[in-house]
């Protein structure tokens, strides 16, 4: 058997398919193997693509002969053959597109808060930042809810800016991405983040009020310092809260201050005594009070570029067209099993 014939044989094709299926199974059960981004998995796909290419090339002369020769039965035959030709060609183009995407495509996430801009994205949650070459500004963020309270859809109004000049913009909705300069932007997720807390401190005689962001530090009239470590809009379903680090020359304390402390004390009578870290009067003589937390939405936006995608789309269309032709052929001709051990419907 000639090497090309051996390589183009069904046995080789089925063997490669079995290997790809086995590797994929391993990939779903052991994600740590990272099968789908490994070089050997790509090699299996390349081998399958070569097998398809050789098969398809070998099939071409007979296909032409079938199309040229007239007569209704040979035309029906040709439709079936053309179908198989399209299916295999389509799969080949899909694999080529997937490889192009794997080599030169990328994707990542960016998180932008309302009214803020970002010019970088991260390929992985802890990955290095990559420059977009321009920045994305989130002008407005909206969540629409169902009557029952579940989110229905969410949207980001975004503007693309470079050096202060507006380059373009668009409305990003779930399932409705925006394309810009070869990149596609998708609405992936959203959330809320606390920005600032309204705090007051009282020692019975003096009173200080401040609006503070996380990380801010201020001084009370007696020189005691208050630093905001964390701000939460809703901590453990107990409402707005801030984590404070209060420090004087003599002592230091770390505790949470809840906005609805009176309610919570009513619900859990010993909360301040049992959990000193939840006692707003822990740092005597000062008693701290949280009057409100200011929050805002942020949008999780996915950025992707995939030069292989049009290839994959074209391949899929070709493959589906081929399947449609094959189906037509079966509807017209029917299937008849033969006793000879060979199916009636042989590709070539």
């Amino acid at each position, binding site marked *: 058997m000639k090497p090309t014939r051996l390589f183009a044989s069904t046995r080789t094709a089925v063997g490669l398919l*079995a290997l790809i299926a086995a590797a994929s199974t391993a990939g779903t059960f052991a994600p740590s193997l990272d099968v789908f981004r490994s070089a050997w998995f790509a090699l299996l796909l390349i081998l399958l693509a070569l097998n398809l290419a050789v098969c398809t090339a070998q099939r071409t002369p007979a296909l032409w002969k079938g199309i040229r020769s007239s007569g209704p039965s040979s035309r029906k035959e040709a439709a079936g053959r053309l179908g198989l030709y399209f299916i295999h060609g389509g799969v080949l183009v899909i694999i080529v597109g997937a490889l192009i995407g794997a080599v030169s495509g990328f994707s990542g996430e960016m998180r932008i808060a309302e009214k803020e801009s970002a010019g970088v994205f991260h390929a992985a949650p802890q990955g290095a930042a990559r420059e977009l070459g321009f920045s994305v500004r989130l002008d407005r963020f909206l969540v629409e809810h*169902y009557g029952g309270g579940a989110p229905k859809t*969410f949207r980001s109004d975004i503007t693309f800016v470079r050096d202060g000049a507006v380059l373009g913009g668009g409305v990003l909705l779930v399932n409705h991405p925006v394309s810009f300069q070869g990149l596609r932007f998708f609405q992936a997720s959203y959330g809320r983040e606390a920005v600032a807390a309204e705090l007051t401190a009282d020692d019975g005689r003096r009173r200080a009020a401040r609006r503070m962001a996380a990380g801010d530090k201020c001084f009370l009239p007696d020189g005691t310092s208050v630093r905001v470590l964390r701000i939460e809009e809703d901590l453990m379903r107990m409402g707005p809260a801030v984590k404070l680090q209060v420090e004087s020359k003599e002592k230091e304390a770390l505790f949470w201050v809840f906005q609805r402390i009176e309610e919570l004390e009513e619900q859990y009578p010993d909360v301040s005594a049992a959990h000193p870290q939840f006692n707003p009067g822990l740092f005597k003589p000062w008693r701290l009070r949280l009057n409100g937390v200011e929050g805002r939405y942020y949008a999780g936006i996915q950025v992707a570029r995939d030069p292989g995608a049009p290839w994959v789309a074209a391949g*899929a269309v070709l493959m589906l067209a081929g399947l*449609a032709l094959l189906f037509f052929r079966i509807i017209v001709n029917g299937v008849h*099993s033969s006793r000879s051990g060979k*199916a009636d419907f042989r590709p070539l």
Partner: protein
Amino acid sequence: MQSAANTTVFAWAAVIYFLSALIYIAAAPGKRENWLKTAAYSAWAGFALHTFALALRWIESYRMGIGHAPLSNFYESIVFLAWAGVLFSLVMERRSVGVPGVFILPAASLVMFYASFSSGIERGIQPLAPVLRSNWLASHVISCLMGYASFAVACGLGVMLLAGERKIRAGGPSGKFMPDAARLDELIYCSLVLGFILLSIGIAAGSVWAHSAWGTYWSWDPKETWSLITWIVYAAALHLRLSRGWQGKRTAALAILGFISVLFTYLGVNFLPGLHSYLN
């Protein structure tokens, strides 16, 4: 959870399928023509009720103000699977009376009883999650589920073919009960091709949807990967048949193997973390 009229109609469809299944099982051994016809008529009646329930559920979702095609949760998906299975059975009965119905109707009634009365299933109509609000939902889910149903039919026919071969070898009275192996082989092949085409369309529709929802047409999510594995198994089965002449028992065995992969794609994958976690 609210009990809506549609779930009651689905339960009645389950009852009619059960009656039809009993008639099929009673009629098949003797190949009694009139009984088989009665069984098929009652299957048609159940199917009509089932179709009405699907439409009713769709209408009820609009009355609730969260209108969407009934294809979004586990209950809706198994109810649709049973519907597609019965549809294929009724279509195939036109070529081979009594053969598909005798196992599809019992299976469909079991699935419908499980869907209607199992305590672990949420039967209420829920609003769609933001990402599911897409025109691709219907085409993706309908073609995938109809593909699964077609593969289920192929698997059931495969079991019948293998059981029949065993009986013939054992010299039992198989001739009466078991249909012609060549006819079964034909039906298995048709179901495999139809399932393969539907699965291909379903994967393609899902990819287009993922391209606009998740930013990539393919993300090697466990369900995607398993749908590819399933596709490969059937692709290999069709190649072995068309160019190596695998028929009969071998095709039947491949149809059963393929359906194990389908079951894992449909149900097993839910135990792995991934993007397709809507069925839970």
